[in-house]
């Protein structure tokens, strides 16, 4: 096999691997691969090292399934948090967004997705059993369900509230409504109806 063909194979290989990333089509994969090819050796090895390290060091918290380098995670092991309140999210990245607000002082539980029959994902495929196992020993009194405001997220929230309420837990849903800066005139009827349901006293 000639040297030239060998090189073409390596580049093709990289394009294939990059194409597996979410949101990356064949064109973007080609562009990224070419960019990597042109980068300095040092940059490329740092990049490769970062990828290998993330897989080696970062894991899921055994309690809440947050991504962490220490187990349990910083939130679960903190002494400053209210451990009787759990905020339920779909993905670990949602915790990062909520943490940025600085408004939540409880702990989290990541479901690792939402109930989505079209994708073959049911309750058994999510971390729901693990959530139920936390309720009694951790004396959970309140949960806030912060699944996404789409149909799957709503259905998942309903499902969870159905199985959590009989356990004597207060169940809240993150408020849904009109985003700040939008105008009522241009908001569609479904979004408006949801905002009305979530109204609060002033």
């Amino acid at each position, binding site marked *: 096999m000639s040297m030239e063909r060998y090189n073409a194979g390596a580049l093709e290989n990289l394009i294939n691997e990059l194409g597996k990333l979410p949101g990356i089509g064949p064109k973007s994969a080609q562009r990224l691969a070419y960019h990597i090819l042109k980068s300095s050796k040092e940059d490329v090895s740092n990049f490769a090292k970062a990828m290998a390290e993330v897989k080696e060091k970062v894991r899921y918290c055994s309690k809440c399934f947050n991504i962490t380098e220490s187990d349990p995670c910083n939130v679960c092991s903190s002494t400053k948090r209210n451990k009787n309140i759990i905020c339920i999210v779909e993905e670990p990245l949602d915790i990062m967004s909520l943490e940025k607000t600085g408004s939540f002082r409880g702990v989290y539980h990541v479901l690792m997705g939402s109930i989505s*029959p079209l994708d073959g994902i*049911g309750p*058994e495929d999510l971390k729901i059993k693990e959530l139920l196992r936390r309720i009694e020993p951790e004396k959970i009194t309140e949960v806030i369900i912060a699944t996404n405001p789409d*149909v799957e997220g709503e259905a998942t929230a309903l499902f969870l509230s159905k199985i959590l309420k009989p356990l004597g837990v207060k169940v809240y849903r993150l408020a849904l409504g009109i985003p700040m800066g939008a105008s009522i005139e241009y908001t*569609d*009827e479904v979004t408006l109806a949801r905002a009305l349901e979530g109204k609060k006293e002033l």
Partner: protein
Amino acid sequence: MNPYHKTTGIIIKVRSYGEANKHLTVYTKAYGKIHAVAKGAKKIKSRFGSTLELFTETKLFFYKQAHAELYLLTQSQIATHFKNISKDVKKYTYASAVSDFINTFVPFGEKSHSLYELFIQTLYKLDTEKHEEKVFSMFMVKFLAQVGFRIALDCCTSCGSDLKQKIRMSVSPKHGGVVCEECSDGISTVEVFNNTLKLMDFLHRKTFDTLSKIMIGEQSHMEIEKVVEHFLEYNFELRLKSLKVMESVNSYGK
């Protein structure tokens, strides 16, 4: 060719696409099943708002160059929002299963007025009526007819000879209907009660409005699902993902 298109469609799948876009699968009146992209639809202040949510019937305005694969959504407006489907886990799982049939077994770009009507009526009935199982069974039977399954009880689908009426009958996914004893020899068949087949024939001929007047037992629902699943999976070599999930949602913790 005019690159601007306008039609009404039901959203059957929503995916994230890039940073802020949505990639949709839509079953439309004018173009059948299509893929479409809504740019910026994931942004909070997107002009698409709630119009692209799963199971919503939406008026759609597209841009598509003659040779482009994707329809680019420029505007949308809610035509029908099924508000109970998104507020009831059971209705949600049934609506998902119905969409799964369209998503899995209907080819892209083939329009069908009768299938569109069946789809929208089923969603409407799931949204407004209590007996989701009955609505779903009727949908399955009517869907099966759309893709070529014949519920003939008097003669064998394979050889045409008169059928002996027995308590249990053999259905052949390969032949798309009931087969006689001789023809069922050596081929894979599904055994069901004769009454289930009579019920399927009844559901096939009647409208959704008759459902409130009839009773269907658990056994019949299961057998209808079995016949439909075997037929579709044999002939399309594709599997439905939603039926297993539906079962586990209904039985969770029991």
